[in-house]
């Protein structure tokens, strides 16, 4: 970040305000440019924006009940159906678009819940190690030890997971153990830093110190993990739908995979290949893009990592 407009001879107050506004804007644009600084990141950003729009707007472009065509089951890609058709003759592209909302929304909800609970737990445990630390960590370890996937399978027998929020909630609640541990470790080490000790010495209340002093310093870690958590949760829920334990009252990518492999036999024949590959490729694209961008998020918060390009 350039400080040349600032650190040279002191400017008079009126000019200073403008100079600082200018440099703040320069800094902001420079930071946002991080996300388009390499071709890989440009592609990643485009992909994420594309899928986000798909999830939000896409389903509105199609009727509630997608048309079926019994004459064209597991059809190959054609002009009318660019990605082929499914077991009912429904257009795969339509399925992809309408199914995206559930998948992405549930993953996002899960990521937010996991990071929310995990961060709060980690901050509390790290900042008050003697009072709350061991108690919270015991709970976190318990959650960490719970085999999330099998539990979800068991839950699926009683709960339909029709709503993506429900799915997101359950996934999120079982996933915060690791984040809590990591945030706690960072909080404990930050606690010894000069400015935290000074804040304690000045008599600032603990809550204020945690949210105003500690949290901004671990924000980069949380930001990165938010993105990576989304990918993890996409895999979890797609996996659940794929193995078929959750009833497919909703159309989503996991269901498509399930249908493609177990009904169409796409794993062993070329029948319904496009039906299989379409959701897979989407998942792959999203995962790679999020991972790429998480590197940009790291640089965003940590100026020392930035290379002059």
């Amino acid at each position, binding site marked *: *970040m*350039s*400080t*040349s407009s600032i*650190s040279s*001879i002191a400017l008079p107050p009126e000019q200073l305000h403008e100079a600082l506004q200018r440099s703040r804007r320069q800094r902001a644009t420079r930071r946002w440019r991080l996300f388009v600084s390499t071709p890989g990141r440009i592609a990643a950003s485009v992909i994420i924006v594309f899928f986000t729009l798909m999830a939000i707007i896409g389903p509105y472009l199609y009727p509630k009940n997608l048309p079926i065509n019994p004459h064209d089951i597991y059809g190959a890609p054609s002009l009318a159906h660019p990605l082929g058709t499914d077991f009912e003759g429904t257009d795969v592209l339509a399925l992809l678009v309408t199914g995206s909302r559930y998948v992405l929304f549930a993953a996002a909800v899960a990521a937010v819940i996991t990071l929310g609970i995990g961060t709060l737990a980690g901050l509390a445990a790290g900042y008050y190690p003697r009072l709350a630390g061991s108690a919270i960590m015991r709970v976190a370890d318990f959650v960490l030890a719970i085999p999330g996937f099998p539990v979800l399978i068991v839950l699926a027998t009683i709960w339909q997971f029709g709503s993506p929020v429900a799915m997101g909630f359950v996934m999120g609640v079982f996933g915060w153990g690791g984040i809590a541990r990591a945030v706690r470790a960072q909080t404990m080490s930050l606690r010894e830093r000069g400015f935290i000790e000074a804040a304690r010495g000045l008599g600032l209340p603990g809550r204020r110190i945690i949210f105003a002093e500690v949290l901004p310093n671990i924000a980069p870690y949380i930001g990165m993990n938010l993105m990576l958590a989304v990918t993890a949760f996409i895999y979890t829920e797609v996996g659940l739908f794929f193995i078929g334990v959750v009833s497919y009252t909703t159309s989503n990518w996991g269901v498509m995979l399930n249908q493609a492999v177990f009904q169409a036999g796409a794993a062993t024949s070329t029948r319904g290949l496009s039906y299989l590959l379409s959701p897979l490729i989407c998942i792959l694209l999203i995962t790679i893009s999020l991972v790429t961008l998480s590197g940009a998020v790291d640089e965003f918060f940590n100026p020392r990592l930035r290379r*002059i390009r």
Partner: protein
Amino acid sequence: MTAGAEAARSEPARSEPAPARASEHLDGSAAVRVRDLTVAFPTPDGPLPAVSSVSLDLVRGQITGLVGESGSGKSTLALTLLNAVSDPGRVTSGSVTIDGVGDVLALHGKSLRRVRGASIGYVFQASQNSLNPLKPVGKQVLDLGRSHGVADLRGLLREARSLLDDMGMNAERVLASYQHELSGGMRQRVGIALALVLNAHLVILDEPTTALDMLTQASVLEIIRKVHARRHLTTLIISHDIGVIGDLADRIAVMYAGRIVEDGPTRQVLASPRHPYTRGLLTAMPRIAGDIGQAQPLPGRPPDLTSIPRAGCVFRPRCPLATDACGQAEPPVTERGDQRFACFVAAGEAS
């Protein structure tokens, strides 16, 4: 003095032919000759020099001290002697000629590696922290020998042992220890021993006593003095602490904002400093001896890469003697006997 300053204002350095390049006046037989060296780093505002047109001689058999504050470029200059300026920094001009090696900047890869360690010993800043934490010291000595193709490894260990003994340590114990088992002072001494064990003739020490206590510092400085004398080394010490340089070094070079503003024999420079920065530094530093009433703080602060003035003398913003001429061009190097300095006003005074 006022008359001199008046003269300087109208015609800077009129009393002598302005040297075309400072390098012409330096001694060609010195052990290390740095000529017009510039090292630049990329910044959002374009490449900026951390070291700018520096020319310096390291006199054979003498200890030279390089003094500077943060942003002076002294560590970058030292690294250049090893051709080890780290990316994204780049040497954009100049040469570093070392006796027996040639221009270090022209060496790369294997030939460069051979020179480092064997011809040039480098003790890094806080070398307490740059020892391998996973290997005992003795193994690191052997690694060093192996990577330089030393045939007699046992002889190398013997050499290391005698060095460590000389430094007042229990050599056997130290060779068997891991880095964390040694105190800061011991690690520093191990760092020095490792730099010398391959019989380099040029040794560079970057902040050798920073973070060490007074007594440990005194003993490390004594060791450096002893080893330098016994092995007839050419030594370069870099420090922000003028006290250390003033005590140990035969010659002193003062760096500010990437330039050498004054250099010469230590006693001479300290007794009659010419450059306003040197003078200011001596009056502004807390000292154990002398009248505390004479101490005066230096206004402003040392510049960083982006705040170095782009035109004129780099010290101008903080200089009590600055004139208009000082803002126009960078002052050329003036020589008075063995002392060199770069200041328009001081050059006028000296005539």
